[in-house]
Protein backbone atom coordinates (compact mmCIF):
# COMPACT_ATOMS: atom_id res chain seq x y z
CA UNK A 1 0.00 0.00 0.00
CA UNK A 2 1.08 3.55 -0.59
CA UNK A 3 2.84 5.52 2.07
CA UNK A 4 0.39 8.39 2.28
CA UNK A 5 0.30 10.64 5.26
CA UNK A 6 -2.70 10.86 7.49
CA UNK A 7 -3.52 14.50 6.87
CA UNK A 8 -6.22 15.74 4.51
CA UNK A 9 -5.25 16.49 0.97
CA UNK A 10 -5.86 20.20 0.94
CA UNK A 11 -3.23 21.32 -1.54
CA UNK A 12 -2.17 20.29 -4.98
CA UNK A 13 1.30 19.44 -3.75
CA UNK A 14 -0.08 17.10 -1.15
CA UNK A 15 -2.21 15.39 -3.77
CA UNK A 16 0.71 15.09 -6.16
CA UNK A 17 2.93 13.48 -3.58
CA UNK A 18 0.22 11.00 -2.66
CA UNK A 19 -0.43 10.13 -6.28
CA UNK A 20 3.29 9.70 -6.82
CA UNK A 21 2.97 6.88 -4.33
CA UNK A 22 0.10 5.42 -6.35
CA UNK A 23 2.13 5.68 -9.50
CA UNK A 24 4.99 3.73 -7.99
CA UNK A 25 2.58 1.15 -6.68
CA UNK A 26 0.80 0.72 -10.01
CA UNK A 27 4.07 0.62 -11.96
CA UNK A 28 5.36 -1.99 -9.56
CA UNK A 29 2.25 -4.06 -10.00
CA UNK A 30 2.32 -3.83 -13.79
CA UNK A 31 6.00 -4.72 -13.95
CA UNK A 32 5.48 -7.73 -11.74
CA UNK A 33 2.51 -8.78 -13.82
CA UNK A 34 4.63 -8.58 -16.97
CA UNK A 35 7.41 -10.63 -15.39
CA UNK A 36 4.93 -13.31 -14.37
CA UNK A 37 3.35 -13.43 -17.82
CA UNK A 38 6.75 -13.98 -19.37
CA UNK A 39 7.59 -16.56 -16.75
CA UNK A 40 4.36 -18.40 -17.48
CA UNK A 41 5.16 -18.51 -21.20
CA UNK A 42 8.57 -20.00 -20.41
CA UNK A 43 7.03 -22.62 -18.15
CA UNK A 44 4.48 -23.49 -20.81
CA UNK A 45 7.13 -23.93 -23.47
CA UNK A 46 9.36 -26.12 -21.37
CA UNK A 47 6.40 -28.22 -20.20
CA UNK A 48 5.28 -28.78 -23.77
CA UNK A 49 8.78 -29.95 -24.63
CA UNK A 50 8.67 -32.41 -21.75
CA UNK A 51 5.42 -33.85 -23.03
CA UNK A 52 7.02 -34.37 -26.44
CA UNK A 53 10.00 -35.95 -24.78
CA UNK A 54 7.78 -38.44 -22.96
CA UNK A 55 5.96 -39.36 -26.17
CA UNK A 56 9.27 -39.67 -27.95
CA UNK A 57 10.74 -42.11 -25.48
CA UNK A 58 7.55 -44.16 -25.45
CA UNK A 59 7.58 -44.59 -29.22
CA UNK A 60 11.33 -44.93 -29.61
CA UNK A 61 12.10 -48.40 -30.96
CA UNK A 62 15.79 -48.10 -30.26
CA UNK A 63 15.30 -47.96 -26.51
CA UNK A 64 13.30 -51.18 -26.62
CA UNK A 65 15.55 -53.26 -24.44
CA UNK A 66 14.92 -55.97 -21.88
CA UNK A 67 12.82 -54.88 -18.94
CA UNK A 68 11.27 -56.16 -15.78
CA UNK A 69 7.83 -56.52 -17.38
CA UNK A 70 4.59 -56.36 -15.42
CA UNK A 71 4.28 -54.14 -12.36
CA UNK A 72 1.80 -51.45 -11.43
CA UNK A 73 2.76 -48.90 -14.05
CA UNK A 74 2.20 -48.59 -17.72
CA UNK A 75 3.62 -50.94 -20.32
CA UNK A 76 2.82 -54.21 -18.64
CA UNK A 77 1.67 -55.42 -22.02
CA UNK A 78 4.93 -55.88 -23.85
CA UNK A 79 8.39 -56.96 -22.92
CA UNK A 80 10.52 -53.88 -22.37
CA UNK A 81 7.62 -51.47 -22.36
CA UNK A 82 7.60 -51.27 -18.62
CA UNK A 83 11.26 -50.34 -18.53
CA UNK A 84 10.68 -47.84 -21.29
CA UNK A 85 7.90 -46.23 -19.26
CA UNK A 86 10.18 -46.00 -16.24
CA UNK A 87 12.95 -44.53 -18.35
CA UNK A 88 10.54 -41.96 -19.75
CA UNK A 89 9.23 -41.06 -16.32
CA UNK A 90 12.72 -40.69 -14.92
CA UNK A 91 13.94 -38.56 -17.82
CA UNK A 92 10.73 -36.57 -17.58
CA UNK A 93 11.13 -35.98 -13.88
CA UNK A 94 14.63 -34.72 -14.45
CA UNK A 95 13.29 -32.09 -16.83
CA UNK A 96 10.32 -31.39 -14.61
CA UNK A 97 12.73 -30.46 -11.86
CA UNK A 98 13.90 -27.65 -14.12
CA UNK A 99 10.32 -26.36 -14.26
CA UNK A 100 10.03 -26.70 -10.50
CA UNK A 101 13.17 -24.63 -10.26
CA UNK A 102 11.54 -21.96 -12.37
CA UNK A 103 8.61 -21.85 -9.98
CA UNK A 104 11.01 -21.66 -7.05
CA UNK A 105 12.60 -18.67 -8.73
CA UNK A 106 9.40 -16.64 -8.78
CA UNK A 107 8.40 -17.70 -5.31
CA UNK A 108 9.35 -14.31 -3.92
CA UNK A 109 7.01 -12.59 -6.38
CA UNK A 110 4.10 -14.60 -5.07
CA UNK A 111 4.38 -14.35 -1.31
CA UNK A 112 1.53 -13.53 1.03
CA UNK A 113 -1.58 -12.25 -0.67
CA UNK A 114 0.25 -11.82 -3.97
CA UNK A 115 -0.30 -15.29 -5.34
CA UNK A 116 -4.03 -14.88 -5.65
CA UNK A 117 -3.55 -11.45 -7.15
CA UNK A 118 -1.50 -12.88 -9.99
CA UNK A 119 -3.14 -16.26 -10.28
CA UNK A 120 -4.51 -15.53 -13.75
CA UNK A 121 -0.99 -14.80 -14.98
CA UNK A 122 0.54 -17.89 -13.33
CA UNK A 123 -2.27 -20.23 -14.32
CA UNK A 124 -1.47 -21.09 -17.99
CA UNK A 125 2.05 -22.25 -17.24
CA UNK A 126 0.98 -24.00 -14.07
CA UNK A 127 -1.65 -26.03 -15.90
CA UNK A 128 0.76 -27.05 -18.62
CA UNK A 129 3.26 -28.10 -15.95
CA UNK A 130 0.59 -30.22 -14.25
CA UNK A 131 -0.24 -31.80 -17.59
CA UNK A 132 3.40 -32.79 -18.10
CA UNK A 133 3.87 -33.92 -14.50
CA UNK A 134 0.72 -36.04 -14.52
CA UNK A 135 1.77 -37.65 -17.80
CA UNK A 136 5.08 -38.71 -16.31
CA UNK A 137 3.24 -39.89 -13.21
CA UNK A 138 0.81 -41.93 -15.29
CA UNK A 139 3.61 -43.61 -17.20
CA UNK A 140 5.29 -44.52 -13.93
CA UNK A 141 2.32 -45.60 -11.84
CA UNK A 142 -0.66 -45.93 -14.20
CA UNK A 143 -2.54 -43.55 -11.93
CA UNK A 144 -3.74 -40.01 -11.74
CA UNK A 145 -1.45 -37.88 -9.65
CA UNK A 146 -2.98 -36.62 -6.40
CA UNK A 147 -3.48 -32.99 -5.43
CA UNK A 148 -1.08 -33.23 -2.53
CA UNK A 149 1.63 -34.76 -4.64
CA UNK A 150 1.40 -31.91 -7.15
CA UNK A 151 1.52 -29.41 -4.30
CA UNK A 152 4.52 -31.23 -2.86
CA UNK A 153 6.33 -30.98 -6.21
CA UNK A 154 5.90 -27.21 -5.89
CA UNK A 155 7.40 -27.00 -2.42
CA UNK A 156 10.89 -26.50 -1.09
CA UNK A 157 13.01 -29.07 0.70
CA UNK A 158 11.37 -28.21 3.98
CA UNK A 159 7.99 -28.96 2.40
CA UNK A 160 6.90 -25.33 2.37
CA UNK A 161 4.82 -24.66 -0.78
CA UNK A 162 6.06 -21.98 -3.17
CA UNK A 163 2.44 -20.94 -3.40
CA UNK A 164 -0.94 -22.57 -2.80
CA UNK A 165 -2.04 -24.85 -5.64
CA UNK A 166 -5.46 -23.73 -6.89
CA UNK A 167 -7.86 -26.62 -7.20
CA UNK A 168 -8.98 -25.27 -10.55
CA UNK A 169 -5.50 -25.37 -12.07
CA UNK A 170 -4.96 -28.84 -10.67
CA UNK A 171 -8.15 -30.18 -12.27
CA UNK A 172 -7.77 -28.34 -15.57
CA UNK A 173 -4.18 -29.51 -15.90
CA UNK A 174 -5.26 -33.10 -15.31
CA UNK A 175 -8.08 -32.71 -17.79
CA UNK A 176 -5.57 -31.85 -20.51
CA UNK A 177 -3.76 -35.08 -19.74
CA UNK A 178 -6.51 -37.09 -21.43
CA UNK A 179 -5.63 -35.54 -24.80
CA UNK A 180 -2.02 -36.65 -24.44
CA UNK A 181 -3.12 -40.12 -23.36
CA UNK A 182 -5.22 -40.37 -26.51
CA UNK A 183 -2.17 -39.57 -28.63
CA UNK A 184 -0.16 -42.04 -26.61
CA UNK A 185 -2.76 -44.81 -27.07
CA UNK A 186 -3.12 -44.26 -30.80
CA UNK A 187 0.63 -44.38 -31.43
CA UNK A 188 0.94 -47.39 -29.16
CA UNK A 189 -1.56 -49.43 -31.17
CA UNK A 190 0.70 -50.01 -34.12
CA UNK A 191 3.28 -51.54 -31.83
CA UNK A 192 3.64 -54.95 -30.26
CA UNK A 193 1.65 -55.09 -27.04
CA UNK A 194 0.20 -51.69 -27.78
CA UNK A 195 -3.22 -53.19 -28.18
CA UNK A 196 -3.45 -54.03 -24.48
CA UNK A 197 -2.03 -50.64 -23.67
CA UNK A 198 -4.75 -48.93 -25.68
CA UNK A 199 -7.38 -50.86 -23.73
CA UNK A 200 -5.81 -49.75 -20.44
CA UNK A 201 -5.77 -46.11 -21.50
CA UNK A 202 -9.36 -46.46 -22.67
CA UNK A 203 -10.52 -47.58 -19.23
CA UNK A 204 -8.40 -44.94 -17.54
CA UNK A 205 -9.69 -42.04 -19.66
CA UNK A 206 -13.26 -43.27 -19.31
CA UNK A 207 -12.87 -43.09 -15.54
CA UNK A 208 -11.28 -39.65 -15.70
CA UNK A 209 -14.23 -38.38 -17.67
CA UNK A 210 -16.69 -39.84 -15.17
CA UNK A 211 -14.78 -38.48 -12.16
CA UNK A 212 -14.45 -34.99 -13.61
CA UNK A 213 -18.08 -34.75 -14.64
CA UNK A 214 -19.12 -34.03 -11.06
CA UNK A 215 -16.99 -30.89 -10.97
CA UNK A 216 -18.15 -29.27 -14.19
CA UNK A 217 -20.64 -26.97 -12.42
CA UNK A 218 -17.84 -25.46 -10.37
CA UNK A 219 -15.28 -24.46 -13.01
CA UNK A 220 -16.41 -22.84 -16.19
CA UNK A 221 -13.48 -24.04 -18.32
CA UNK A 222 -13.92 -27.63 -17.23
CA UNK A 223 -17.07 -28.14 -19.31
CA UNK A 224 -15.14 -27.31 -22.48
CA UNK A 225 -12.26 -29.57 -21.50
CA UNK A 226 -14.67 -32.39 -20.71
CA UNK A 227 -15.94 -32.15 -24.27
CA UNK A 228 -12.38 -32.53 -25.53
CA UNK A 229 -11.94 -35.50 -23.21
CA UNK A 230 -15.10 -37.08 -24.62
CA UNK A 231 -13.74 -36.70 -28.13
CA UNK A 232 -10.42 -38.21 -27.12
CA UNK A 233 -12.22 -41.06 -25.43
CA UNK A 234 -14.23 -41.81 -28.55
CA UNK A 235 -11.04 -41.90 -30.61
CA UNK A 236 -9.51 -44.42 -28.21
CA UNK A 237 -12.70 -46.49 -28.18
CA UNK A 238 -12.76 -46.57 -31.97
CA UNK A 239 -9.15 -47.71 -32.01
CA UNK A 240 -9.80 -50.41 -29.43
CA UNK A 241 -12.78 -51.52 -31.47
CA UNK A 242 -10.71 -51.80 -34.64
CA UNK A 243 -8.25 -54.09 -32.87
CA UNK A 244 -11.02 -56.32 -31.63
CA UNK A 245 -12.69 -56.55 -35.02
CA UNK A 246 -9.47 -57.39 -36.86
CA UNK A 247 -8.34 -60.06 -34.43
CA UNK A 248 -11.76 -61.63 -33.98
CA UNK A 249 -11.53 -63.37 -37.32
CA UNK A 250 -8.78 -65.61 -36.00
CA UNK A 251 -8.68 -68.22 -33.33
CA UNK A 252 -5.38 -67.16 -31.84
CA UNK A 253 -4.25 -65.21 -28.79
CA UNK A 254 -3.20 -61.57 -29.32
CA UNK A 255 0.41 -62.46 -28.62
CA UNK A 256 0.47 -65.17 -31.23
CA UNK A 257 -1.16 -62.84 -33.73
CA UNK A 258 1.52 -60.26 -32.98
CA UNK A 259 4.19 -62.86 -33.57
CA UNK A 260 2.80 -63.83 -36.95
CA UNK A 261 2.63 -60.24 -38.07
CA UNK A 262 6.14 -59.52 -36.85
CA UNK A 263 7.43 -62.48 -38.82
CA UNK A 264 5.75 -61.32 -42.02
CA UNK A 265 7.05 -57.78 -41.80
CA UNK A 266 10.63 -58.87 -41.23
CA UNK A 267 10.42 -61.58 -43.89
Amino acid at each position, binding site marked *: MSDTTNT*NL*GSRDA*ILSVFEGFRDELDDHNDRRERLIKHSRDVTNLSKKIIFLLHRIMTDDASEGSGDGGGVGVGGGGVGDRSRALKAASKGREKLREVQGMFANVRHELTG*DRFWRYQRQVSPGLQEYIEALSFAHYLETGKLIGYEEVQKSLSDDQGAPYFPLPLEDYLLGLSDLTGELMRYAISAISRRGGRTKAQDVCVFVRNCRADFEVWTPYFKDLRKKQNVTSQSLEKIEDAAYAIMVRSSEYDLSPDMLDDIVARTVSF
Partner: protein
Amino acid sequence: MDVKDLEYVNDLLEQDNELREKIKDEVAELDKKTRTMSGLLNRIHSTPAEQMPALLGQVKPVLESCRTTTAAIANVVPPTQFWRWKDMWTNSLRSAVFAATMVGYLETGTLLTLPQVRDVLGIDPQWSDRYALAAEDYLHGVISLVNELSRLAVNAVTMGNFEEPIKISTFVKDIFAGFSMLNLKNDPLRRRYDSLKYDIKKIEEVVYDVSLRKLAPSRNQAS
Protein backbone atom coordinates in the same frame (compact mmCIF):
# COMPACT_ATOMS: atom_id res chain seq x y z
CA MET B 1 -8.69 -41.02 -9.37
CA ASP B 2 -8.50 -43.07 -6.25
CA VAL B 3 -11.11 -42.60 -3.56
CA LYS B 4 -8.85 -40.73 -1.17
CA ASP B 5 -7.97 -38.11 -3.75
CA LEU B 6 -11.55 -37.79 -4.86
CA GLU B 7 -12.66 -37.08 -1.33
CA TYR B 8 -9.81 -34.68 -0.82
CA VAL B 9 -10.81 -32.65 -3.86
CA ASN B 10 -14.45 -32.72 -2.85
CA ASP B 11 -13.57 -31.48 0.62
CA LEU B 12 -11.60 -28.56 -0.77
CA LEU B 13 -14.49 -27.70 -3.07
CA GLU B 14 -16.97 -27.88 -0.24
CA GLN B 15 -14.91 -25.52 1.87
CA ASP B 16 -14.62 -23.01 -0.94
CA ASN B 17 -18.34 -23.11 -1.55
CA GLU B 18 -19.18 -22.51 2.06
CA LEU B 19 -16.74 -19.66 2.20
CA ARG B 20 -18.25 -18.14 -0.95
CA GLU B 21 -21.74 -18.28 0.52
CA LYS B 22 -20.59 -16.66 3.75
CA ILE B 23 -18.84 -13.83 1.94
CA LYS B 24 -21.86 -13.35 -0.34
CA ASP B 25 -24.09 -12.80 2.68
CA GLU B 26 -21.78 -10.22 4.20
CA VAL B 27 -21.30 -8.42 0.92
CA ALA B 28 -25.07 -8.24 0.44
CA GLU B 29 -25.11 -6.40 3.76
CA LEU B 30 -22.41 -3.95 2.65
CA ASP B 31 -24.21 -3.50 -0.62
CA LYS B 32 -27.45 -2.55 1.08
CA LYS B 33 -25.61 0.12 3.06
CA THR B 34 -23.87 1.66 0.06
CA ARG B 35 -27.18 1.72 -1.79
CA THR B 36 -28.79 3.62 1.08
CA MET B 37 -25.90 6.10 1.05
CA SER B 38 -26.14 6.61 -2.72
CA GLY B 39 -29.83 7.32 -2.33
CA LEU B 40 -29.20 9.90 0.37
CA LEU B 41 -26.24 11.51 -1.38
CA ASN B 42 -28.32 11.84 -4.54
CA ARG B 43 -30.20 14.54 -2.61
CA ILE B 44 -27.21 16.89 -2.47
CA HIS B 45 -28.24 18.10 -5.91
CA SER B 46 -31.40 19.65 -4.52
CA THR B 47 -30.25 20.48 -0.98
CA PRO B 48 -29.38 24.12 -0.26
CA ALA B 49 -26.04 24.72 1.45
CA GLU B 50 -27.60 25.44 4.85
CA GLN B 51 -29.42 22.11 4.93
CA MET B 52 -26.35 20.12 3.90
CA PRO B 53 -25.18 19.39 7.48
CA ALA B 54 -28.55 17.85 8.25
CA LEU B 55 -28.29 15.62 5.19
CA LEU B 56 -24.76 14.58 6.10
CA GLY B 57 -26.07 13.84 9.56
CA GLN B 58 -28.19 11.16 7.95
CA VAL B 59 -25.40 9.69 5.87
CA LYS B 60 -22.71 9.47 8.51
CA PRO B 61 -24.30 6.87 10.79
CA VAL B 62 -24.72 4.57 7.77
CA LEU B 63 -21.12 5.19 6.80
CA GLU B 64 -19.95 4.34 10.28
CA SER B 65 -22.05 1.20 10.33
CA CYS B 66 -19.94 -0.08 7.44
CA ARG B 67 -17.21 -0.84 9.96
CA THR B 68 -19.17 -3.80 11.29
CA THR B 69 -19.67 -5.28 7.85
CA THR B 70 -16.06 -4.67 6.97
CA ALA B 71 -14.94 -6.55 10.06
CA ALA B 72 -17.38 -9.35 9.29
CA ILE B 73 -15.95 -9.87 5.81
CA ALA B 74 -12.37 -9.65 7.09
CA ASN B 75 -13.20 -12.35 9.62
CA VAL B 76 -14.47 -14.74 7.00
CA VAL B 77 -11.69 -14.42 4.42
CA PRO B 78 -8.75 -16.79 5.12
CA PRO B 79 -5.28 -15.24 5.43
CA THR B 80 -3.53 -14.50 2.08
CA GLN B 81 -6.74 -14.97 0.12
CA PHE B 82 -7.66 -11.29 -0.19
CA TRP B 83 -7.26 -11.16 -3.99
CA ARG B 84 -9.02 -14.44 -4.46
CA TRP B 85 -12.38 -13.18 -3.23
CA LYS B 86 -12.01 -9.47 -3.76
CA ASP B 87 -14.12 -9.37 -6.95
CA MET B 88 -17.15 -10.19 -4.85
CA TRP B 89 -17.10 -6.86 -3.00
CA THR B 90 -15.14 -4.58 -5.31
CA ASN B 91 -18.18 -2.68 -6.56
CA SER B 92 -19.66 -2.22 -3.10
CA LEU B 93 -16.33 -1.11 -1.69
CA ARG B 94 -15.85 1.46 -4.43
CA SER B 95 -19.30 2.85 -3.68
CA ALA B 96 -18.33 3.07 -0.02
CA VAL B 97 -15.16 4.96 -0.96
CA PHE B 98 -17.28 7.33 -3.01
CA ALA B 99 -19.61 7.95 -0.08
CA ALA B 100 -16.73 8.49 2.34
CA THR B 101 -14.86 10.93 0.11
CA MET B 102 -18.05 12.78 -0.80
CA VAL B 103 -18.86 13.29 2.88
CA GLY B 104 -15.23 14.32 3.36
CA TYR B 105 -15.44 16.88 0.58
CA LEU B 106 -18.75 18.31 1.73
CA GLU B 107 -17.49 18.68 5.29
CA THR B 108 -13.93 19.86 4.79
CA GLY B 109 -13.53 20.69 1.09
CA THR B 110 -10.55 18.37 0.89
CA LEU B 111 -9.85 14.90 -0.42
CA LEU B 112 -9.66 12.11 2.14
CA THR B 113 -6.47 10.09 1.73
CA LEU B 114 -6.52 6.35 1.28
CA PRO B 115 -5.56 5.74 4.94
CA GLN B 116 -8.28 8.14 6.02
CA VAL B 117 -10.89 6.33 3.96
CA ARG B 118 -9.59 3.08 5.42
CA ASP B 119 -10.13 4.50 8.87
CA VAL B 120 -13.61 5.73 8.08
CA LEU B 121 -14.59 2.33 6.75
CA GLY B 122 -12.88 0.57 9.62
CA ILE B 123 -10.42 -1.39 7.51
CA ASP B 124 -7.55 -2.47 9.74
CA PRO B 125 -4.22 -2.23 7.81
CA GLN B 126 -3.15 -5.40 9.60
CA TRP B 127 -5.77 -7.39 7.73
CA SER B 128 -3.98 -6.61 4.49
CA ASP B 129 -3.92 -10.21 3.26
CA ARG B 130 -7.62 -10.71 3.99
CA TYR B 131 -9.37 -7.41 3.45
CA ALA B 132 -7.75 -4.20 2.32
CA LEU B 133 -8.42 -1.05 0.37
CA ALA B 134 -6.43 -1.42 -2.85
CA ALA B 135 -5.17 1.75 -4.53
CA GLU B 136 -7.19 0.90 -7.61
CA ASP B 137 -10.45 0.82 -5.67
CA TYR B 138 -9.65 4.05 -3.88
CA LEU B 139 -9.01 5.68 -7.25
CA HIS B 140 -12.25 4.38 -8.72
CA GLY B 141 -14.13 5.82 -5.76
CA VAL B 142 -12.44 9.19 -6.23
CA ILE B 143 -13.40 9.24 -9.92
CA SER B 144 -17.03 8.62 -8.93
CA LEU B 145 -16.66 11.57 -6.60
CA VAL B 146 -15.53 13.82 -9.44
CA ASN B 147 -18.35 12.55 -11.70
CA GLU B 148 -20.86 13.56 -9.07
CA LEU B 149 -19.20 16.90 -8.34
CA SER B 150 -19.54 17.97 -11.97
CA ARG B 151 -23.28 17.38 -11.57
CA LEU B 152 -23.21 19.30 -8.30
CA ALA B 153 -21.52 22.29 -9.93
CA VAL B 154 -24.46 22.57 -12.33
CA ASN B 155 -27.14 22.09 -9.70
CA ALA B 156 -25.54 24.41 -7.18
CA VAL B 157 -25.87 27.27 -9.67
CA THR B 158 -29.52 26.33 -10.23
CA MET B 159 -29.99 26.70 -6.48
CA GLY B 160 -28.29 30.09 -6.57
CA ASN B 161 -24.98 29.02 -5.10
CA PHE B 162 -22.35 30.61 -7.40
CA GLU B 163 -19.33 29.91 -5.22
CA GLU B 164 -19.60 26.13 -5.19
CA PRO B 165 -18.60 25.61 -8.85
CA ILE B 166 -15.43 27.61 -8.31
CA LYS B 167 -14.58 25.61 -5.22
CA ILE B 168 -15.28 22.39 -7.07
CA SER B 169 -13.18 23.56 -10.00
CA THR B 170 -10.04 24.01 -7.93
CA PHE B 171 -10.61 20.78 -6.03
CA VAL B 172 -11.17 18.70 -9.14
CA LYS B 173 -8.24 20.15 -11.05
CA ASP B 174 -5.95 19.16 -8.22
CA ILE B 175 -7.27 15.63 -8.32
CA PHE B 176 -6.86 15.53 -12.08
CA ALA B 177 -3.24 16.62 -11.74
CA GLY B 178 -2.78 13.68 -9.41
CA PHE B 179 -4.32 11.23 -11.86
CA SER B 180 -2.15 12.56 -14.67
CA MET B 181 0.87 11.24 -12.87
CA LEU B 182 -0.24 7.63 -13.22
CA ASN B 183 0.82 5.27 -15.99
CA LEU B 184 -2.36 3.39 -16.81
CA LYS B 185 -2.94 0.32 -18.93
CA ASN B 186 -5.92 0.04 -21.26
CA ASP B 187 -8.17 -0.99 -18.40
CA PRO B 188 -11.41 0.28 -16.83
CA LEU B 189 -9.47 2.75 -14.70
CA ARG B 190 -7.97 4.24 -17.85
CA ARG B 191 -11.38 4.62 -19.44
CA ARG B 192 -12.80 6.28 -16.37
CA TYR B 193 -9.76 8.54 -16.12
CA ASP B 194 -10.45 9.67 -19.68
CA SER B 195 -14.00 10.49 -18.61
CA LEU B 196 -12.64 12.83 -15.94
CA LYS B 197 -11.64 15.24 -18.67
CA TYR B 198 -15.25 15.70 -19.63
CA ASP B 199 -16.22 16.38 -16.03
CA ILE B 200 -13.56 19.06 -15.79
CA LYS B 201 -14.71 20.55 -19.06
CA LYS B 202 -18.29 20.67 -17.78
CA ILE B 203 -17.23 22.30 -14.53
CA GLU B 204 -15.13 24.85 -16.42
CA GLU B 205 -18.14 25.74 -18.53
CA VAL B 206 -20.13 26.44 -15.40
CA VAL B 207 -17.33 28.55 -13.98
CA TYR B 208 -17.15 30.36 -17.30
CA ASP B 209 -20.88 31.04 -17.28
CA VAL B 210 -20.88 32.23 -13.71
CA SER B 211 -17.83 34.46 -14.15
CA LEU B 212 -19.05 36.10 -17.32
CA ARG B 213 -22.67 36.54 -16.23
CA LYS B 214 -21.39 38.78 -13.50
CA LEU B 215 -18.75 40.71 -15.36
CA ALA B 216 -18.99 40.54 -19.12
CA PRO B 217 -21.30 42.34 -21.51
CA SER B 218 -23.74 39.97 -23.16
CA ARG B 219 -24.71 40.12 -26.83
CA ASN B 220 -28.40 39.87 -26.01
CA GLN B 221 -29.95 41.06 -22.87
CA ALA B 222 -31.38 37.66 -22.05
CA SER B 223 -32.37 38.35 -18.47
